């Protein structure tokens, strides 16, 4: 008896819900369905994204150190740490290193993304030209992008090693031995090599995205321009570039986010050295937390990074048509 009652109650609820849906407009129905489909993801989102972010924000207002990290989150954590207001933020803003690493992070993003875009675009144009013997290149172009970062760092380390590195050997062969150096250990060259590594890795992604964009440009636009006597530059300037505007912006904003957030390339290759000349915000957070045992201040820097990233993310969402 009670089993039947439960069944009836279940079906009556379904009926109520379906009559509720029937009274809605199509747009409202779509919205409700969307939210229902999101429902299973929300707990995961809260646990994996929101909770750690909130803990980071709370940590940034405390004097948490390595001992606090061992107890995890709970009453004990709040017994161990003291809330110190905005001290961590003030310490950061009055520390010259903070401004140095922030500037370097923006420099890395600006230079790397610009080079990646220009070189990626050139590569995309070459691919689009369909040059003879260039077909195989399309198949291997993504290799740098799929190689694990650790392997890429090993390759670059090997190529630039002081004695047996291929770069130095090449320089010696062509009579430029005075230019040989320990590239990753050099104040002048360590940061440029980090930029080169970013470019080498990400350029294929730009090339393929832009190549896809080029392929979708209607051919009749070029034909019409030719009839009007447009030069190659004019066609590029007034047809190709405007048509690539959307994929370009998406790929640029995405790489701004990825490069700004990147930790592993620098950590594995130079560890932020020499003398901090390759230290960026992402590696500085790690250094503060694990080497200087200043978890609270590291969290404050992480929060600042998060705010900057949110601005970039907002731009990206705006571009792809989402609500900001």
């Amino acid at each position, binding site marked *: 008896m009670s089993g039947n009652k439960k069944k009836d109650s279940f079906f009556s609820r379904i009926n109520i819900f379906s009559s509720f849906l029937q009274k809605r407009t199509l747009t409202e129905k779509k919205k409700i369905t969307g939210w229902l489909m999101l429902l299973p993801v929300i707990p995961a989102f809260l646990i994996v994204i929101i909770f750690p972010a909130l803990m980071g924000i709370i940590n940034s207002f405390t004097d948490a150190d390595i001992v606090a990290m061992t107890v995890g989150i709970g009453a004990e954590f709040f017994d161990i740490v003291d809330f110190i207001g905005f001290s961590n933020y003030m310490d950061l803003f009055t520390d010259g290193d903070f401004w140095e690493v922030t500037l370097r992070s923006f420099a890395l993003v600006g230079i790397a993304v610009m080079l990646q875009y220009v070189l990626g675009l050139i590569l995309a144009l070459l691919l689009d030209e369909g040059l003879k013997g260039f077909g195989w290149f399309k198949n291997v172009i993504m290799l740098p992008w799929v190689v694990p970062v650790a392997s890429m760092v090993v390759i670059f380390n090997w190529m630039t090693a002081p004695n047996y590195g291929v770069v130095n050997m090449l320089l010696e062969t062509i009579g430029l031995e005075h230019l040989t150096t320990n590239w990753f*250990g050099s104040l002048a060259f360590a940061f440029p090599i980090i930029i080169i590594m970013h470019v080498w890795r990400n350029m294929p992604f730009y090339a393929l995205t832009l190549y896809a964009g080029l392929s979708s440009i209607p051919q009749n636009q070029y034909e019409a321009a030719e009839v009007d006597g447009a030069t190659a530059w004019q066609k590029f300037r007034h047809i190709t570039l405007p048509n690539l505007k959307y994929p370009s912006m998406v790929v640029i904003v995405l790489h701004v986010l990825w490069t700004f957030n990147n930790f592993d390339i620098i950590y594995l290759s130079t*560890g932020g050295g020499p003398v901090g000349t390759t230290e960026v915000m992402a590696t500085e957070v790690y250094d503060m937390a694990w080497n200087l045992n200043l978890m609270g201040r590291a969290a404050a820097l992480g929060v600042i990074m998060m705010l900057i990233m949110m601005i970039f993310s907002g731009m990206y969402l705006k571009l792809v048509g989402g609500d900001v």
Partner: protein
Amino acid sequence: MSTKKLLTSMLVLLIALTFTATLQAESPELNLWQHEFVIDWQGREAVVDFFEENTQLNVDEDYGPAGFDSIEEQFIIQGRTGYPDVLEGTPEQMFTYQEAGLVHSLDEFWQDYEDKDQYPESLLEALEIDGELYGLPYSHNVRMLLYRESVFEEHDLDVPETWDEFVETAAYISENVEDMQGFIFTSEADEVRVMQEFLTFYYQLNNEGLFDDESDPARLLASEEELAEVLKLYDDMYTEGGVDIDERGSDWMRTDYGYTGGDFAMVTVGPWVWGHRAEDDEASDVLDDTGITHPPVHEEGEAATFMEVAPMMMNAHSEHPEESWELLKEVTSKDFQLLINTLSGAQAAREDAMEQDAINQLIEERDDIDEEMAGDWWLAGFSEYADIGVAPSAVSWDRPEDYIIDAIQEVIYEQQTPTEAAEELYRNLDNLDL
């Protein structure tokens, strides 16, 4: 075979399996994070096999992350879950773990330990904090000056005794010996070896240590002048050409492999480089051509060097402390230590695992151990100077290490003079609340 016999055999097998499974279930599963079990070196397979064949305990075959830095990070985050039960580390890490309440004092077990007489007092003291023992000595080493005997003979050079001679000899070799540099300092950012090399030379000026760990907070023992002297040695080495400026930022692999690859005439390292011997003939030849002596001594100092005592620790939150102690005893047992240290060329902490007869017998029994070990000259070369080893103070070394590496880099990259860098280093170390 008749059906009846077959069924009986199957039944017996089933009962045996059930019995084994029941026994297994009664023994709690323990977790061991052992660096040598997961990093790639010539003896890894042999020591893992030996351990797994001989352990009386139920130990998970996942031996943790590779690399002491990863071990530290993961243990700090998850140590309170009780996982792993036993782990290997550096003494500097042990001090950090103890401060965070993550490692178990071994005093209650140590009192009744039947093998406690096998450990020299000096090694035990290196792993004591406030008079309590927190790690079982696993291996130990003192940093010695290794030099290429044939190069010194060929160029009629004396092994340097003082810092001035050291710089002069290194510069001479860099200048006059083809494809060879006099010396190398490890100088990569975030590399613990950098600090250990710095202390090797610092202890000659102050063998009391860098910090007085008896006081709370720990008091800085170094003077600005002493720090400046050590940094001046770095400066002199690079400016005089004893160390190639292209080697700035070199990591420990460059130091070790560079020496066994014949790139450097001198290095200050521990006995572990013997482990590279089996890699190729060149490494083997270089090590056969190696002389071992104490690092050159400051003109106004006394012979001293960095001593590292590797601890095997127990998680303070382990759910099975009794069994974990048994596991600790297994991985520091004579037989296990004899094998792992003979294979790697490291110095065992136990005296009975360093006995020459036992080493010779092991070499006879196994064909995967280099017979050259029987000559004993390698370990004897390090043991001869064991008494000048100074263990680091019992404090958390994360920040001091960072400041020391910063100071060295400031000097070798000519961003600061040794005096300026020492002034800043002194101020940073003195302000620490350790």
